[in-house]
């Protein structure tokens, strides 16, 4: 009777002790714990590993971690300078998207990090490619491959043309896990200078009015409009969510001269701003 329980325990003990015998090194610290690999991009010399929290790229703001493995000795490169360029190939033209610089993650030896805002995607996530240019010991390398960018369920990024005839991209960064509370909200605001250049827009204001369309456009108190934070290069504000469910974040884009470039106030007759993002939880 009891043997039934003892045998598997013994076997397990034996097995684990055996396997640990093989390892004579201290197991290396896993620097990409909690991250899931999205894709490897390889060239002759290196394999570039791309990680996100979800293991996928989605439209909107993506926080991406990178490791470069030397194909010859399977070791991860600890001192590289990386730049990247995501490209969307459309039928008639191609364009890039807002992206940050890639920098080494402080406190880690092999991980580099940056953000990309995919403002749209093609059928079944197609159309995007990512080109990485990196320098190791003054030697420049390049790697490029197509990537899959899936469509997010809710509108967490939007591209609009302001009254100043400029194309702007707004991407929701936080809250990534919204809750019934006053949430910190962070939005990235970029200007489309040309097909390749999407610089951060500074010192604007983004007015916020969250609403629940299913609840007769119920709103919440104590929200705070988003203001520019120059160190983060993002816009921060406060978002009150009184219950879980589907929320529309009605926005107004206001420039540094207090001119409203896009978006309207919400009234009984005008229930949704032309500039908005969505949250559902």
């Amino acid at each position, binding site marked *: 009777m009891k043997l039934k329980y003892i045998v598997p325990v013994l076997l397990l003990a034996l097995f684990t002790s055996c396997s640990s015998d093989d390892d004579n090194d201290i197991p290396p610290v896993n620097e990409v714990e909690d991250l899931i690999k999205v894709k490897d991009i390889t060239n002759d010399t290196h394999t570039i590993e791309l990680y996100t929290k979800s293991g996928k790229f989605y439209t909107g703001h993506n926080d991406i971690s990178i490791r470069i493995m030397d194909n010859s000795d399977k070791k991860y490169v600890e001192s590289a300078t990386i730049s990247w360029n995501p490209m969307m190939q459309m039928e008639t033209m191609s364009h890039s998207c807002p992206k940050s610089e890639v920098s080494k993650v402080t406190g880690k030896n092999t991980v580099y990090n940056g953000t990309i805002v995919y403002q749209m995607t093609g059928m079944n996530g197609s159309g995007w490619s990512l080109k990485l240019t990196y320098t190791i010991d003054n030697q420049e390398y390049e790697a490029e491959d197509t990537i899959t960018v899936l469509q997010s369920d809710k509108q967490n990024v939007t591209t609009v043309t302001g009254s100043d005839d400029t194309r702007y991209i707004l991407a929701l960064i936080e809250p990534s896990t919204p809750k*019934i509370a006053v949430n910190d909200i962070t939005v990235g605001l970029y200007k489309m200078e040309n097909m390749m250049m999407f610089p951060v827009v500074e010192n604007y204001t983004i007015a916020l009015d969250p609403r629940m369309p*299913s609840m007769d456009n*119920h709103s919440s108190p*104590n929200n705070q409009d988003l203001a520019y934070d120059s160190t983060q290069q993002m816009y921060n504000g406060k978002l*009150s969510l009184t219950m879980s469910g589907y929320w529309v974040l009605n926005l107004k884009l206001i420039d540094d001269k207090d001119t409203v470039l896009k978006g309207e106030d919400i009234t009984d007759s005008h229930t949704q701003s032309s500039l908005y993002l969505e949250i*559902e939880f």
Partner: protein
Amino acid sequence: MKKLTLLYLSLLVGVITHAQDHSIHQKETDTLVTHLDEITVVGRRKLSNYRQEKTLSSIDEYLEKSNRVTMIKRGNYAWEPTLNNMASDRLSVTIDGMQIFGACTDKMDPITSYVDVSNLEKVTIASGQEGTENANAIGGGIDLKLPESKYYNTGLKSSVDLGYETNGNYKTTGADLVYSGNRLYISGDGIYRKSDNYDAGGNQEINYSQFKKYNISLQAGYKLSDHDNIDATFIYDKATDIGYPALPMDVSLAKATIGAIAYTHRSESTFVKNWETKLYFNTITHIMDDSKRPDVPIRMDMPGWSDTYGLYSKIKAKTQKHQLSFNLNAHYNRSLAEMTMYPNDPNENIMFMYTWPDIRTYYTSIYAKDQFYISTKEKLSFTARLGYQTNKIKKETGLESLQIFYPQISDSKSRILTSFSANYTLKHKKTDFSVGLGYGERAPSVSEGYGFFLFNSFDNYDYIGNPTLKNEKSAEVNFKTNYNHKNFKIGIEASYFHIYDYIIGQNDDSLSPMTIGANGVRVYNSLQYASIFNTFLNASYTLNKTLSLNTSVGYHYGKGSDHNNLPLISPISYLAEVNYSLKSFNAALQVNGNTNQGNHSVFYGEDQTAAFAILNLNLGNTFFIKDNKLILKYGIENILDTHYSTYADWNNIPRQGRNFYINTSYVIQ
């Protein structure tokens, strides 16, 4: 229905013919006195006077007979008692000293709905600070007293009750069994009530006014010695399919389990006469939903739970001139309620919030009362209560959701609550007189302190609780006098409450309502003060042993420091009745009405309720069949089929039209 009517008719005929031979050999022991603050449920087996026309009446109907109590009605079930024009938040409502709190955020389950008349021996109603024996309160206390164990050695006794009312096809069936030995007492009773929709005057059917409930109670007592006994009580009450015609939602389940164990030490010879220590618990589940309503803007479920654990230790002591009582009590309550809404677009996520974010209340207090008999005619009495209460928001989500409105609050708040009263009574042969002063404080209720978007269909506003509310404080004066002359008796009583930091919902136009179609949002806040005044004039005239007249008029006043009338203040109310009573038969004809509600509160969303008067006829017989007894109660309520509603009817929901009723109790001794 035909069958039932036939059954009653044959029963009636048979009994009347049979009963003639039997002399009445048992004196009725009715102790019910109309205008005392303590009204006594005489029990279903006894023919009581006009105050309890129906032996099987609900507690609600029963309480309504008290002068100071009016019932707020949201339907035909679970009426909310108010005392001195103050509702549950300002009252201490207890079951035999046990704290119990409703689990519904919309007050659809007052405590009185979780017991049945069959469970009770009497109801003690005490006005103002005199009603703080069990908890801090402003308006007073209602204690629903359970029967005490009786070691009479009378053996087994049982009774069966049947009731039928035409309006709503309302059926009641009950049975109880009592064993009383020398050392052991056991009693059990069960009652089942079911009503369909009732009709208002003019045969207007009130949809969603049905209900169904059963209640089982068990009680056991064991005498350990001549001075000590131990008692256990268990009550299970379950109501299902309860309609609330005045509200947008119904209740599919309201369930309570109440349990207690008590140890009592009695002694006549020592200073301490009675020392009772009780441990108790109760748990309530309340499921509110709108699944039976065809058209709603959005489907929602609103379940709520309330669990209370507590204990008290009461000492009664006596010296020659002093009668002392002490009560040390403590309780812990957990109140949790949530709301889930189902969007009309099935692709959207459900919407969820905590409407009572798991509020834990810890309360400990001490109470003392001294009745000092200065002389045979004069008495002074003092009461004092000191309580310490802590509220804690247990759910992190709950705290964070309230912080949307109150960013500075922390998860807990403690309060000290005090209460004092002094009363002087002078009794002469023909007159008696008493005057009292009182001061009391109360903490905000869970809804007032922590409610989150609670929709009130009365004024059509969403309410947000306010954890930063100050204690509500009341200074009170009361006065009572009676004069007897021969067969004539007249009495006046009056009480005035000056309530500081009066808690009431106030408009906040900056907030957006959650409920679809609501007028706006009100946040609980304090008025600088409010004044509430109640006075009653009672007169009775006894023509002879069998015939008496009785009248009562009440005037009520309630105003806030903002000069607005307070909501739910009664207009002038009156009652007049003629009683005819023999030993085995009684009859009463009663007129009961309100004047036009001129003092309605426009500011708080009240409309004026028109004057009304209704006429009731109540009859009762007692028959003895060998050793057994049959009690019949029958009559007509609202004889003229008046279509009316009172100021206390939620959304002016009309009350019952004409109703024929019959209650029978058969007691096997």
